[in-house]
């Protein structure tokens, strides 16, 4: 089929406002959101890495920031995103390899991934 330029006013590819929501969609869109969070964390990670490996004063500044409210929220957010993206990524790899790719097992594994993430999020919130 030849490529035809789309109408810019037309619906976007994942037509979120039209599809009925189900757990597989939540898992997919969660993978994108957590992936974006992880990418956005990279500049912060570089700043942390530079501070921590710099002078003792630099280390102190970074350490104090990590223990501030914003620092704790950042660690929590990136931790939860990492756990989710990791678990759901393993799920995607398994589905690609043909393990558990029936509709029922995909929905079940999506539920398991979301449950694990919620549990880890609560655990991390208590620990930090």
């Amino acid at each position, binding site marked *: *089929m030849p*490529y035809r*330029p*789309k109408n*810019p006013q*037309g619906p*976007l*590819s*994942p037509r979120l406002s039209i599809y009925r929501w189900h757990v597989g969609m939540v898992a997919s869109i969660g993978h*994108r959101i957590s*992936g*974006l969070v*992880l*990418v956005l964390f*990279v*500049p912060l*990670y*570089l700043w*942390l*890495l*530079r501070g*921590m*490996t710099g002078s*003792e004063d630099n*280390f102190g500044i970074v*350490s104090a920031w*990590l*223990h501030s409210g914003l620092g704790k929220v950042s*660690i929590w957010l*990136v*931790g939860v995103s*990492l756990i989710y993206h*990791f678990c759901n*990524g*393993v799920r*995607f*790899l398994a589905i*690609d390899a043909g393990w558990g790719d029936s509709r029922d097992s995909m929905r079940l594994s999506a539920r398991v991934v979301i449950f694990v993430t919620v549990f880890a999020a609560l655990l991390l919130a208590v620990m*930090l």
Partner: protein
Amino acid sequence: MRMTKEPGSAHSGLSDWYWQRLSAVVLALLLPLPFFLLVAVYTGSVDQQGLLDILDHVVSRLLHTILIMALIVHAYAGLKVIIEDYVHIVAWRIPLIGVMLVMMSMFGIWWLAMIWAWI
């Protein structure tokens, strides 16, 4: 298996898909390590000297380098798909992907320079 007749302008449907999975496996193995280290520093179980001893070991530097390369491949593949899905005007899409690529290269070079500069 049904074959795709028109693979599109990329001329192959496999390359992006394959690189995304390959980098995913590398990241699944390596990415938890710096997060654990960050938490260890946060809780105080590793102090600055301990952190430096871990980070400037040659094995850490090599693993860190592999991590950065896999991260750039994976982040590029993921963000490209997101941009392609939500940005439909080609005049916006191509510059956005270009800007993304330039920024990722800058961060990658800065990061590599930092890792290999530690004495």
